[in-house]
């Protein structure tokens, strides 16, 4: 039997969340921090995101993905964190026993005092959205296409139709156009774009790529390779309208139809998941339902901005360090519930009102001239105005201990978006 490794903190996944969590745990005094990554390099998804727009909050600069990642990788280099690459976690038990495997060491047992789950998310596939048609080559997820083009130097096709106007889809529309491919159109089921406005302008409008809202792909044609797709307008229940159906020739259908937090091993570890976010139910330190298990980044919910990922991961890293020092009983949590025009809020729980914390949330529908309010037991704690809120854009509301006004016990916390038109 090989020796069991017993680090203070083990972080699973070395994307932006894992990097920030590992560094934060180390800075918080943890001497033995292990960072486990299944890929051959650090940075997670960032190395393939060669467009800019990363770091505007954390670094107050517009960086590319690789640049943003490199800042953290450099910082990690200055710590004693042990990074294990090419290592896949096979299992985590509710007692925090990790089983991992790599080619060098074989199967490894790890029993850390605390764990940060930072496995990121994966792309939803054509089957999960039940796209009808054949199953030819040439149906590719936008994130994978990005990897093919930017890392491996391979073009998935020449003439594309893109389904879904999420940020990755928009960025890839521009990327493949710059590579000399043609984008016949971006089709979006909803009546508003899935990605942030800046990307709609800079990636589509600037390149004259048509965006068709309230449209979907109804059939994939081609037995061996994609030969085209049928598209149609949809009604208010998202059902295709038959006589609007038309054929669009293309050799590739690129899908940007959503991301799913990657929580298969969290489930095995007994972590409670939120059916709305698809990620663990967490408290303000990103602590999950299993004591000593924290989670960070897109495994919790899909943040739009990497800056938020890093920030929330720092909380998780510090939370893990704190748990290692004081593994005792946790305070009973206060629930955080979504109020008016709020789809969900992360964290879902607050245990300690005596520290600064951030609530991340999404609205259900676009709304102009609003006030964003955080309430406790029905009383407004903070209120901030905003000109416009959109479902694709995650909103952050910060709270400091003073906002609780010295209230000892507080009722359920809620976050709401209300009209501010007087």
């Amino acid at each position, binding site marked *: 039997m090989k020796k069991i490794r017993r680090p203070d903190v083990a972080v699973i996944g070395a994307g932006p969340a894992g990097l920030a969590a590992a560094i934060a745990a180390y800075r918080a005094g943890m001497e033995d921090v292990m960072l486990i990554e*299944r890929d051959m390099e650090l940075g997670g998804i960032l190395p393939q995101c060669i467009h800019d727009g990363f770091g505007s909050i954390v670094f107050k600069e517009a960086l590319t993905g690789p640049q943003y990642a490199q800042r953290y990788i450099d910082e990690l280099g200055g710590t004693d964190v042990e990074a294990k690459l*090419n290592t*896949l976690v*096979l299992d985590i038990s509710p007692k925090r026993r990790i089983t991992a*495997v*790599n*080619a*060098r*060491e*074989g*199967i490894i047992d790890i029993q850390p005092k605390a764990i940060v789950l930072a496995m990121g998310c*994966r*792309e939803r*596939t*054509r*089957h*999960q959205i*039940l796209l*009808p*048609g*054949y*199953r*030819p*080559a*040439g149906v590719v*997820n936008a*994130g*994978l296409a990005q*990897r*093919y*083009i930017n890392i*491996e*130097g*391979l*073009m*998935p*096709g*020449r003439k594309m139709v893109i389904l879904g106007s999420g940020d990755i889809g928009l960025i890839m529309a521009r990327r493949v156009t710059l*590579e*000399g*491919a043609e984008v016949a159109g971006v089709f979006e089921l909803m009546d508003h774009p899935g990605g942030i406005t800046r990307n709609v302008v800079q990636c589509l409008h600037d390149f004259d790529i048509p965006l068709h809202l309230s449209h979907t792909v*109804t*059939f*994939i044609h081609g*037995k*061996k*390779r994609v030969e085209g797709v049928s598209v149609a307008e949809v009604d208010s229940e998202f059902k*295709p309208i038959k006589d609007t159906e038309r054929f669009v020739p293309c*050799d*590739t259908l690129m899908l940007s139809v959503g991301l799913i937090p990657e929580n*298969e091993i969290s*489930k095995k570890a007994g972590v409670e998941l939120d059916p709305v976010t698809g990620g663990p139910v967490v408290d303000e330190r990103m602590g999950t339902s299993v004591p000593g298990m924290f989670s960070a980044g897109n495994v919790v919910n899909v943040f739009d901005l990497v800056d938020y990922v890093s920030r929330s991961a720092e909380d998780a890293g510090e939370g893990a360090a704190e748990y290692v020092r004081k593994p005792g009983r946790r305070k009973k949590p206060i629930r955080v519930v979504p109020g008016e025009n709020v789809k969900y809020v992360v964290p879902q729980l607050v245990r300690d009102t005596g520290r600064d914390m951030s609530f991340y949330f999404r609205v259900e529908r676009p709304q102009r001239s609003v006030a964003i309010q955080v309430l406790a037991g029905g009383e407004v704690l903070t209120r901030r105005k905003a000109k416009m809120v959109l479902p694709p854009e995650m909103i952050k509301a910060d709270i400091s201990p003073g906002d609780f006004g010295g209230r000892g016990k507080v009722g359920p916390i809620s976050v709401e978006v209300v009209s501010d038109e007087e």
Partner: protein
Amino acid sequence: MVIGGGVIGCSIAREVTRYTPDVVILEKEADVADGTSKANNAEVHSGIGEKHGTLKQKLNVRGNRMYEEFVKGLGVDFKRQGLLIVITPRSLPDRVTGRLPALRRQLLKELVPRLILLSGKRKGIPGQRIVGREEIFRMEPNVTREAIVGVHDPTYGLVSPYKLTIALAEHAIINGAKVFLDTEVTGVNVEGGRVKGVVTDRGEISAPIVVNAAGVFADDVADMAGAGGFKIHPRKGATLIFDKETTTEYVRGSVAEAKLFVKKKSKGGGGMPTIEGNLQLGPTAIEVDDKNDTSISAGEIEEIFERFHYLLPDFPRRSVIAAFSGVRAPTTDEDFIIGPSDTAHGFVNVAGMQSPGLASAPAVAQMVLEILQDLGVPSEPRPGFDPVRPTPALFADQDRKGRERLIKEDRRHGHVICRCEQVTEADVVNAIHGIVPATNMDAVKRRTRAGMGRCHGGFCGNRVAAIIARELWMPVTAVTKDGGGSRLFAGETKHFLEEIG
């Protein structure tokens, strides 16, 4: 010579190698099992669904009984897990006592299960028994509350149809057979009433005996030999596949709803896990014009949801991870057509092999062997026959000790490239250099499950493509999904820009 590398062609070829190593399989696709044998529901039926007295009913019951012996030495799992047939208010058509609810309920509860048992007995299916309502829910807690009573059919089993087909082909090869992939038969040479061989898109091959196991194309191939006279009308069936994780929470075994006195073209289907543990719901049955119509329509998806929502309410809709369609090969009279041709001596048709073709395969192979022995295949078993096909062990299928051993033998087993199914680099390399080599993405998937999981190749796709390219000394841009024109990439980056200038 066998035309068609499906489960039927490969079963026959393997059977024949017990007597002579002189067997050739011709397959037009880039892999065996690439026709209907990869796209079916993997059920080894007991035979209860087939009309009494038909050839397919007899071969189904016989084939089912032979399965353990059939897979022995192949390194393929077969699980006789049983089928729960559920009787619901829908099990009788409305025209039967539709207006007499009390009588109807009585019939459903008392008569219908006994009719099923009686029918089973007549067909020679052993072990069936009636299961009370409470026991149904103990066996399958998620079955509809409308269930009245059930019948348990213990001989029903599950097998991976493509793994079985590949294993049969490989077992035939180690016993002397040859398999030619990417080889399409375009003509059959017949001279003076005797078969001489076949014409393919890669040249002619002579053979005194030709077996037509061309699946949905069997009528076309028969016509090439002038041995036809039957027509196959393709009938498509679509199935949805669900995430393993939700499956185990949801169903324990296979369940089907009994439907009596309905004119059914194919078995009703139901909810059944694959042998790997993914729930399948389906299949549909739709007549199509095109024998290659493996598409799935929005209407079919709806139909599946609607149909099985009744039998299995609240099934995990959101966890569909794949959908596929297969094409059945029924003839006009809906039965198997197995026999030598009168006009072209040496030509044998094995046609109309629709469901339960997989379940019947062992018995079909035996029946065809006997026909071939009449035509000159030796009748003495050959001493040199190797009963075991060497099977590379998959990392995911091992326990901890087995995994450690594999890594010790080959470090590349420590490199997991498909996270959903825990497939290692060594697994992929072994598949590529297998006895029937896997030269494309789907072929690797069938052997290793890489890309078959919930992310559907999102993580491993590029890794598998790179390994195929590396191992087969070809550029990545030449790697295909499924042979032929199914290239994954249009070229390298910057390539189009150079073209445009």
